[in-house]
């Protein structure tokens, strides 16, 4: 599992595409930025590589639908289902891309604070689980784990 994070529009997806040479490899790109994204069951995935882009948007949906502990539970199930999928075959790889939304001023609205908090926790979960973490700063990558 590989986690790629950094500020908005810093070139995270571009970095992933280039680093993994996605043009020439079989992969499934799931973007939560696209509306009406249906959640894919890992069991049904046949490609060896899966990219989950826009983790913060998926967290936003969870935060809007559930109270914190339930949302956290749903999130953990999501993360572990992908980890399990990856572990079943040595050739499999999951790459999660999440935008850093943690460094602005504290939002006025409670639901925005909840979203931001949950995203931070989720990123900590991913970073703990992942064997590699990359921080992207205007196209420059830094391996932080």
């Amino acid at each position, binding site marked *: 599992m590989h986690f790629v994070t950094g500020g908005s529009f810093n070139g995270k997806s571009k970095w992933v595409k280039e680093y993994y040479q996605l043009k020439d490899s079989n992969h499934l790109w799931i973007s939560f930025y696209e509306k009406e994204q249906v959640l894919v069951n890992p069991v049904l995935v046949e490609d060896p590589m899966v990219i989950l882009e826009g983790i913060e948007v998926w967290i936003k949906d969870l935060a809007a639908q559930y109270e914190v502990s339930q949302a956290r539970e749903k999130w953990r199930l999501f993360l572990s289902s992908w980890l399990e999928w990856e572990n079943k075959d040595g050739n499999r790889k999951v790459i999660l891309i999440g935008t850093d939304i943690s460094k602005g001023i504290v939002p006025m609205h409670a639901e925005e604070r909840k979203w931001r908090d949950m995203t931070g926790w989720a990123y900590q979960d991913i970073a703990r689980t992942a064997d590699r973490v990359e921080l992207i*700063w205007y196209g420059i990558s830094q391996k932080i784990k």
Partner: protein
Amino acid sequence: MAESSLIFISGGVRSGKSSFAEKLAADYAQEIDGQLHYIAAGQSSDPEMEERIRRHQNDRLESGLNWTTWEQPVELTKLRHTFQSKDIVLLDCLTTLLNNEFFSQDEMWKSPDFQKQVMASIMEGIEQIAQKCHHFIIVSNEVVYEPLGDRELVYIYGKMLAQLHRNIVAKAYQAFLVEAGIPLLMKGIERA
């Protein structure tokens, strides 16, 4: 451009990025016996901004170094013939310049064509200046670390600024992120 003369410096508010940039410029100027130039993009729109500009002017005055200031709140390309090979040029800061261009024509910022044109014009100015001078140091601000989501203006502005940063970092031979006064070298190699 044989070798890039461009240096990009970014950081949060009051991170010490301007002081670091000015010191870097001064070091280069001393090394090559060059001339220091300062491109000021700020327009004093309120007393606080005036005070901020005055503070920066004072800092440069008290440094004992001979800075030549160029007031250029918009249209960077106008300075394309201004500099020469022994000039060290500092632009502080890019966000102000983008602000001025962005809001120069009422509601135009909503138009994708206008956005492209603003970005292209800023990049053109940067490249023209970088080609002429010895070193061109650009200071900017870190702003895109919160949800840009629902507010169209913030979203577009943040996207444009981040894209400018990416373009500049790609062309720069050094890029620094300044944290609490400490410059972190993100691209390029440390000078001996």
